[in-house]
């Protein structure tokens, strides 16, 4: 039991630290690796919250596929270092927005946490499959995602290919 608590809060601390690292690193490759660490520690948090299937999916799809795509593009384009943080109007707007969002989320979390029910909801992948396929509530949306993925694939190829005659 105590191991669960250590794992959860340890993963939370690692997620926050690497999240800060994502936005503070100048080099995009360092940001990408920090983001992989964030995603893996979020997977640990998902598992500790009782959804093991989503945790596995997080590692395979996010930390595996999507981040490899990002790293591939960064290395392909040989992206150079960021020249520095935005100063001036946009930088001030970012700080302002960050403070407002942080205050709002602290209020929401502290108010909302008192009203949350805490139920016994450990789930396995069969539960997710039953939720997806046993009622038509999510079934059509699930079928629509296949069209979404297909059109994204075609769109990516069309956008990224070289024009003829160039």
């Amino acid at each position, binding site marked *: 039991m105590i191991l669960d608590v250590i794992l959860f809060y340890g993963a939370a601390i690692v997620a926050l630290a690497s999240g800060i690292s994502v*936005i503070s690193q100048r080099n995009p490759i360092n*940001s990408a690796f920090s983001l992989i660490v964030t995603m893996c520690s979020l997977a640990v*948090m998902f598992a500790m919250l009782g959804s093991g299937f989503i945790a596995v999916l997080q590692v395979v799809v996010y930390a595996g596929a999507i981040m490899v795509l*990002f790293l591939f593009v960064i290395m392909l384009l040989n*992206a150079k270092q960021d020249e520095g943080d935005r100063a001036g109007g946009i930088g001030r707007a970012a700080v302002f927005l960050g403070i407002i969002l942080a205050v709002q989320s602290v209020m929401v979390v502290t108010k909302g946490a008192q009203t949350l029910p805490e139920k016994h909801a450990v789930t396995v992948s069969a539960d*997710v499959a039953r939720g997806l396929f046993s009622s038509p509530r999510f079934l059509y949306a699930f079928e629509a995602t296949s069209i979404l993925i297909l059109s994204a694939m075609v769109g990516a190829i069309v956008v990224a290919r070289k024009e003829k005659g160039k």
Partner: protein
Amino acid sequence: MPNLEAFQTATMGGFSAAHAGFVPAALAVSAFLFVLGAVGVFIRRNVITVMMCIELMLNAVNLAFVAFSRAHGTIDGQILVFFVFTVAAAEAAVGLAIVIALQRNREDLDVDSFNLLKG
């Protein structure tokens, strides 16, 4: 499905009061990560880093979905995370294709230099 329930009680059975704090803590982490992503979109100049900040925000929302799924004892939150995964994959594929096309035409990845549509 008696086997499934037996598996669940065997693997995750002994729930204690210590786990009751997980959901508010997860929501707090989720909120903080979302704020980080939103600030990162504004302060970073490299368009690839901006896209990674968007992924960070999507991950924060996923964490909130899983936490609420746990708190309410329903599976719907996890199914929505599944849909967020597919949308994120499609977004990353198309977005990075656009980045490659931009690099080919402009030879620059600074978001400030993409001002063709600016009035």
